[in-house]
């Protein structure tokens, strides 16, 4: 499955549609499909639109029982100003950014190394190692929160970024996504290097990794989105307001602001913005990355 997805990089290209289904006139069926697609898209965009409108209202208008898409006292950016003055959202965005980046970087390094060994090197105990890693895919992270918390307490890492980062770097499923990709790289490419006496590490970094950019990007995207949005573990691992990640920080804001609806929506939108902007720029890669790793993840 993964192989297919990778070979046919059709996902996200519009030309593939044209080749598959010769573009004829809009048939009745197509028009019906278009209408249904538009209705669903409308429903899926309403929450964004409603949050945006609310965020640009005055608190009075937001709390008025009369629902209005155009607020009686006009649009205002007050809520955003207040949220910014609060200063927490930029700080939490930064925290989310560097913890997620660190998690992604460490995951990529350690997973690609072990995946290379599983794919290319015949060593004693490889089968056992492979079996143990496969078996571990089944462990649901929520099961680990109690012992992990206890472990972090013992290591004096609670209320440090280490506690957020370290336990999130193990992605057994991604090891296999990478291994499957490495398996496909023709060995002949490495043989010349072997003849020249290149070390394994050299072969790995100079031949295998450059050829694996698409899958490395896919894994990076998958891991980054997961880390960026993870709630449960960072919620447990930190109480220090200066270390909170965005999702956890927002949860504290919600209770602090109480019924400040416009501010609630403004902070939610600000929190949503970074990934949405990134998505707009890298739409194709993100879609392909999620589909590839999602499909291959089993």
């Amino acid at each position, binding site marked *: 499955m993964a192989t*297919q997805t990778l070979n046919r990089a059709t996902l996200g290209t*519009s030309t593939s549609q044209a080749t598959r289904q010769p573009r004829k006139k809009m048939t009745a069926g197509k028009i019906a499909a278009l209408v249904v697609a538009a209705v*669903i898209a409308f429903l899926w965009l309403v929450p964004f639109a409603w949050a945006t409108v609310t965020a640009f209202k005055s608190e009075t208008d937001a709390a008025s029982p009369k629902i209005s898409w155009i607020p009686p006292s006009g649009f205002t950016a007050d809520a955003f100003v207040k949220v910014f003055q609060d200063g927490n959202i930029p700080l939490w965005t930064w925290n989310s950014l560097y913890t997620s980046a660190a998690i992604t970087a460490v995951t990529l390094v350690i997973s690609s190394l072990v995946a*290379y060994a599983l794919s290319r090197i015949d060593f004693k105990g490889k089968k056992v190692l492979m079996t143990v890693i496969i078996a571990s895919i089944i462990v649901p992270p929520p099961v680990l929160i109690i*012992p992990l918390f*206890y472990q972090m307490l013992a290591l004096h890492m609670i209320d440090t970024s280490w506690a957020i980062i370290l336990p999130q770097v193990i992605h057994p499923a991604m090891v296999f996504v990478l291994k499957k990709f490495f398996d496909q790289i023709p060995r002949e490419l490495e043989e010349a290097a072997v003849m020249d006496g290149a070390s394994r590490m050299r072969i790995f970094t100079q031949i295998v990794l450059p050829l694996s950019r698409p899958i490395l990007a896919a894994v990076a995207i998958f891991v980054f989105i997961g880390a960026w*949005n993870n709630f449960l573990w960072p919620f447990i691992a930190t109480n220090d307001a200066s270390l909170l990640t*965005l999702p956890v920080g927002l949860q504290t804001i919600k209770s602090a602001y109480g019924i400040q609806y416009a501010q609630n929506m403004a902070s939610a939108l600000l929190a949503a913005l970074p*990934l949405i902007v990134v998505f707009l720029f890298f739409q194709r890669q993100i879609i392909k990355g999620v589909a590839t790793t999602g499909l291959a993840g089993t």
Partner: protein
Amino acid sequence: MSSSLTRRSPGSRVSSPTAQRSRGSLTRNNLSGWGFAAPFLVFFLVFLVWPVVYGIYMSLTGKSLTGANDSMIGLANYAEAFADADMWRSLGNTLYFTVISTVPLVLVALVMAALLNVGLPAQWLWRLSYFAPYLLASTVVSLFFTWMYNPQLGLINDSLSKIGIPKVAWLNDPNVAMWAIVIATLWWTVGFNFLLYLAAMQNIPAQHYEAASLDGAGAWRQLFSITLPQLVPTTVMIVLLQVLASLKIFDQVYQMTAGGPGGSTRPVVQYIFETGFTGYRLGYSAAISYIFFGLIVLVSVMQFVITRRRSA
């Protein structure tokens, strides 16, 4: 296989695959193999294997966050958990959510992908709208929906009242709250399944469609005779992923209803969290974690057996 990769020593006359079995290269392979695996292994052992094992030990003790009673108490925690009505209720809520969320999360994703596979104009717009919510943190989703579900100020009740449907206490009515969470979850995560379906559909060879249209099959006919039958393995996989994901539900419930009203939405992960961190009973909490783990293993094994039988 990897004999070609093993650097042959200059004087070696052995060029057959048995060369790699020579003592020197074997040791070298073992060294480099474990060397490449080592960084992952360290994290794996410390942050996955150790917690799994230590969690089992904890579940057999009376360990608490307040430091009391570290001693082994055998299976007492498990015995208590099996008699704990709250645990059963939270497990029941989790299963209920899993059952009622999986169906729409798979079907709506399939419909979305099938619509786009027809070849509509402005593909990017539909893809973006369906998938964008998946990029949001659970907290953002919860803020959006808590706001829309607000009984007095919420958009949903207001829209419903325009078509004559009376106000619903979305998050405050024990009979409705779980469905409210399903709707929010559907909006939030269906884009992921949608992408998996779309990827699978675009992998169906174009010749199948060309042959069908030469035979005069229209779009609908092609959908039912080619697309859907080819999607069976993908569907099995998506259902499997979805069930396992739904069983882990916590974030959006905790943030939208905190498990209420009256515990009607509290999932088992929240119960684990609460017994451990609010109730300070780490040992007991660990025991419930492992009962939950057992459930996940059971479901996975069941699904594995079913898929095996299918493909056999």
